[in-house]
């Protein structure tokens, strides 16, 4: 019957469109590298992967941001070649025989709304705020306004580092908002006068104000010389010494053009300046 054939035609057309479009772009891959891990490092890994693939056609680097723990687990199990992590290895993870390559430095800034007069906090005050032992800005020299806590999701390396450095492993307040991304934290703090959160220094923009910790304001200089207390190292883990495509890719990430462009662009500090 004429009409029924038209329906089949329509559906077949849809698939054909998808198939042909596919051929024009993705070519067959010779060498494949999988890089999984921290959502914080995801931007760096993806951007450098794109640059590397552009420079070395025929290689395919698949990057996934599933969280530091997942990254460490999958590289130790071999389901991915490089595991990226924005936190140090947990004691039991040290036994997995992973080789650490440090690729960048991340300083975590405590941010408040620009209208909030508070400019500095001690480490203890910051901890007390995020554990909800302090609930009103007036208790730290601000207006009489309830504190709106903004936390990151449990998979976030930034949250993990903040918890270790500032809270010394104690629990975050459980009534805090849990947001899945840096940008959301920044947006919420920008729009809510009483909000407080923490993001990588690189992402601080005019919409928020970074607070000094123990009287040290977070700047490239204070992070580079190690005086700013809340900072962490970003790691690429490999099973044994990196070799082949993995080594080539890691060296590429450590190269100056990538460090200056990609790492800085992602809001982090190039590794070569600080630890040389």
């Amino acid at each position, binding site marked *: 019957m004429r009409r029924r054939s038209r329906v089949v035609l329509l559906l077949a057309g849809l698939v054909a469109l998808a198939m042909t479009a596919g051929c024009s772009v993705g070519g067959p891959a010779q060498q494949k590298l999988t890089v999984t891990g921290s959502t914080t490092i995801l931007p760096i890994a993806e951007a450098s992967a794109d640059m590397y693939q552009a420079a070395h056609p025929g290689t395919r680097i698949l990057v996934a941001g599933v*969280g530091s723990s997942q990254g460490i687990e999958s590289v130790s199990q071999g389901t991915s070649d490089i595991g990226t992590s924005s936190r140090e290895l947990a004691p039991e993870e040290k036994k997995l025989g992973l080789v650490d390559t440090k690729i960048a430095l991340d300083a975590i800034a405590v941010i408040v709304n620009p209208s909030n007069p508070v400019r500095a906090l001690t480490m203890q005050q910051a901890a007390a705020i995020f554990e909800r032992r302090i609930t009103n800005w007036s208790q730290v020299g601000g207006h009489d306004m309830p504190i709106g806590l903004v936390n990151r999701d449990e998979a976030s390396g930034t949250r993990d580092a903040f918890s270790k450095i500032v809270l010394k492993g104690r629990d975050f307040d459980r*009534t805090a908002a*849990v947001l899945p991304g840096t940008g959301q934290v920044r947006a919420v703090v920008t*729009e809510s006068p009483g909000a407080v959160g923490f993001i990588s220094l690189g992402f601080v923009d005019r919409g928020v104000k970074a607070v000094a910790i123990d009287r040290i304001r977070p700047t490239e200089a204070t992070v580079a010389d190690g005086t700013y207390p809340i900072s962490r190292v970003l790691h690429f883990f490999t099973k044994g010494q990196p070799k082949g495509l993995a080594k080539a890719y890691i060296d590429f990430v450590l190269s100056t053009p990538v460090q200056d462009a990609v790492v800085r662009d992602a809001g982090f500090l190039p590794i070569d300046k600080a630890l040389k």
Partner: protein
Amino acid sequence: MSAGSPREGQAQAPAPQDRGPAGNGGLSRISRATHLKEALLRNAFLVCACVAVAGVTLIFVFVGYQGWPIFAKLGIGEFLGGRVWYPTKGLFGILTLVVNSLLAMAGGLVLGAPLAVGTAVFLSEVASPRVREVTRPAVELLAGIPSVVYGFFGLVLLRPIIARVFGGLGFGLFTVWVILGVMIVPTIATLTEDALRSVPEGIREASYAMGATKWQTIWRVLLPAARIGIIDAVILGMGRAIGETMAVVMIAGNAPVIPDSIFKPFLTLTTVIVMDMPYASGDHRTALFGVAIVLFVISMIFVASIRVISRSRGEGD
């Protein structure tokens, strides 16, 4: 060949069976081929129809298999009744999440149901054909908008407004109620409109004939007559609201506690899955599948209750 002349001289039309005008002997038995073909087709269609049953069973089997250990480990009472959800500490009580999901759904209904029924009444009773020609596609389009777009809209426009107007971060039950309320309108409105349209025209005329105003007709005659259909629609809306994930996760704030105000962050059965799934493992992952089982059972309860209500009306299929 003049019209109607007898056909004696006519060549026999070549039909498969021999059919002279006098009719052949006995009634032909069903030929084995057609009987077999019809039976084969009938069973093939039956198999396709049973794919739906297979689907539900498969969901129970696979989701159940993955989620069952948490029930075994904690026991249904502890899992459903436990107040604290703290995976990193091995605490998997989902009572908080259940309560939050119900609160979110209830608020969504309080906002959405009247809006939906009002829109449905408007479409079937009040709107002029020209206006209806515009409004109905709008409702259908509202149904077409992906829930992730609702969530995104809520996150970047609604949340900041609520934060500024009501203080706080903008996350919370109120924000979710607004978005859920709008999302379930199409579901409830289309079904309610069908229910209203299935009310026989005569009933309206009878009511008007007795001098009733349009509103009296709607309130005293039409809505009661379509009562069962509307209840079904609302229950389906509830199912949609409690099952919503993408729109809720962006604006709920995801704090694993029962919020002490409607402007404080909270976590629900659906949002805990989408937040934790990427990194959950071991018992935590099993618990998330356990939550999925609970959600599946809740949605089945809603469907069953619709069936019971419609059967109580004695309405045959």
